[in-house]
């Protein structure tokens, strides 16, 4: 692996950058792997990396139908935080957040993880109680969270509408200072490059078309590049989990929905932190490029189309302007849509399936990006040991059958009520 550094950038710059080589190989699939990961998104690539790095399992292939990072890794609003209320969730996401903090150095690839803070606004005293409850739950577990007064908010985000006439007047907030954003594509590329350097085969344009299951145990997959044997297979295709699991005759507690996001044209810095709200379902941040990144509720019905409904975007625009009135004359530049794996309690699934040696990582709803390193690490652990880590044990597939669901919002089983 060519080392990345300012010095090397300078040296190779003297040669016109002609000597840079591929960041990761383009290998043909081998006939057999110890572990096959289906899905070359951030989670799948991170899983492969940690399998090789932490567990020494290097005979690993990541099979990607299209181009790596082309699913939800490249279609999110890049927010990283661990400020959840339910213990199983904040423990999972905090584990992930700690990995984010060392990721660029670990991968020798700058993922631009920027801890400019993740803020939830409160718009009533009852919002503030709920935020304090969340913050208290986090603080008891050693996770950073601080309540913000109106005066502090005014200083932090001068453009925020602090007037009492607002439909949802801002009365305070809860900030996680260690939260922030990262460069989403770089996460996929960084993990691919680092995994590749450890011997993992990252195979693009290789669609899994079937599973070879014998006597209740998976022994390999069929792909557009031929049949490939494996001792263990991990599904990691959030957005399409149901489609891939169906190849093993599995039905999942997952519906595929659509989440849209969009960015404005770039302007000079105006918003430093990630802004979310307890009452208004939109989230706002400003990328390093200067674009305001905006997202909101999903489209509320099952679809794989990646064609969003315009009224959802319009709603988010209204919400964003309500919070920051100066956004009105900025222009939406690009919009996109991702297919989300909506699980039936709003929490992910990481663990075994009823098929021996077949594992599932999915159901991330619209919160998977921030979990990328943690999800990969824990999934690698689960795949390596054949048993879940304590952190992902609660996120087992059979929790719906037993009733041990992990319902952050208390919205119940229907994804569109969430």
């Amino acid at each position, binding site marked *: 692996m060519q080392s990345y550094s300012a010095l090397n950038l300078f040296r190779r710059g003297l040669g016109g950058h002609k000597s840079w080589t591929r960041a990761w190989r383009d290998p043909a699939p081998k006939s057999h792997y110890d572990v096959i990961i289906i899905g070359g998104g951030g989670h799948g690539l991170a899983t492969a990396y940690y399998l090789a790095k932490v567990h020494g399992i290097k005979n690993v292939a990541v099979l990607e139908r299209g181009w790596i990072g082309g699913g939800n890794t490249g279609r999110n609003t890049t927010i990283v935080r661990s400020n959840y209320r339910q213990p199983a969730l904040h423990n999972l996401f905090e584990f992930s957040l700690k990995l984010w903090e060392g990721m660029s150095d670990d991968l020798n690839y700058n993922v631009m993880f920027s801890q400019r803070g993740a803020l939830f606004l409160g718009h009533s005293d009852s919002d503030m109680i709920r935020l304090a409850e969340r913050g208290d739950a986090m603080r008891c577990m050693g996770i950073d969270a601080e309540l913000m007064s109106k005066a502090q908010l005014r200083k932090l985000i001068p453009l925020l509408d602090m007037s009492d006439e607002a439909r949802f007047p801002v009365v305070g907030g809860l900030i996680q200072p260690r939260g922030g954003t990262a460069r989403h594509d770089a996460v996929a590329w960084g993990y691919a490059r680092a995994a590749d350097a450890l011997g993992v085969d990252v195979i693009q344009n290789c669609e899994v078309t079937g599973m070879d299951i014998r006597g209740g145990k998976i022994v390999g997959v069929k792909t557009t590049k031929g049949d490939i044997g494996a001792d263990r297979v991990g599904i990691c295709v959030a957005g399409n989990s149901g489609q891939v699991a169906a190849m093993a005759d599995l*039905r999942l507690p*997952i519906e*595929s929905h659509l989440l849209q996001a969009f960015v404005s044209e770039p302007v000079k810095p105006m918003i430093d932190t990630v802004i979310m709200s307890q009452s208004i379902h939109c989230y706002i941040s400003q990328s390093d490029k200067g674009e305001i990144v905006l997202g909101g509720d999903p489209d509320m*019905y099952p*679809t*794989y189309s990646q*064609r969003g*409904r315009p009224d959802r975007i319009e709603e988010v625009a209204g919400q964003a302007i309500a919070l920051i009135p100066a956004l009105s004359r900025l222009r939406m530049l690009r919009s996109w849509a991702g297919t989300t794996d909506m699980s039936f309690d709003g929490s992910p699934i990481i663990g075994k399936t009823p098929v021996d040696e077949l594992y599932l990582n999915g159901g991330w709803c619209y919160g998977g990006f921030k979990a990328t390193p943690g999800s990969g690490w824990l999934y690698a652990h689960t795949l390596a040991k054949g048993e879940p880590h304590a952190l992902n044990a609660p996120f087992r597939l059979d929790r*719906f059958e037993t009733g041990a669901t992990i319902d952050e919002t208390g919205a119940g*089983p229907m994804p569109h009520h969430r």
Partner: protein
Amino acid sequence: MLLIHCPHCGPRAQAEFVFERPLESIIQIDEALPDLIPKLYSRVNPKGPSWELWRHTYGCQSWLKLHRDTHNHTIHAVLEIGQTPEGGDA
């Protein structure tokens, strides 16, 4: 935003409708636990035609069965509750 042909109100914007659930996951009240669990907590989640329950919440408030393609959004049929499609089960 879809255009849904309500059998009562004619073609109307999706903004007037609310998706409820796939027909396969309608659970009768006396459903036994072994039948309820898969209906409540697992989905075919098809990429293609799907029978779904919607409601014309901001229109005539009817519950409607839609046969809708989840991939290209073509709506093949909209039926009233109690109607069954010709040659198919819904």
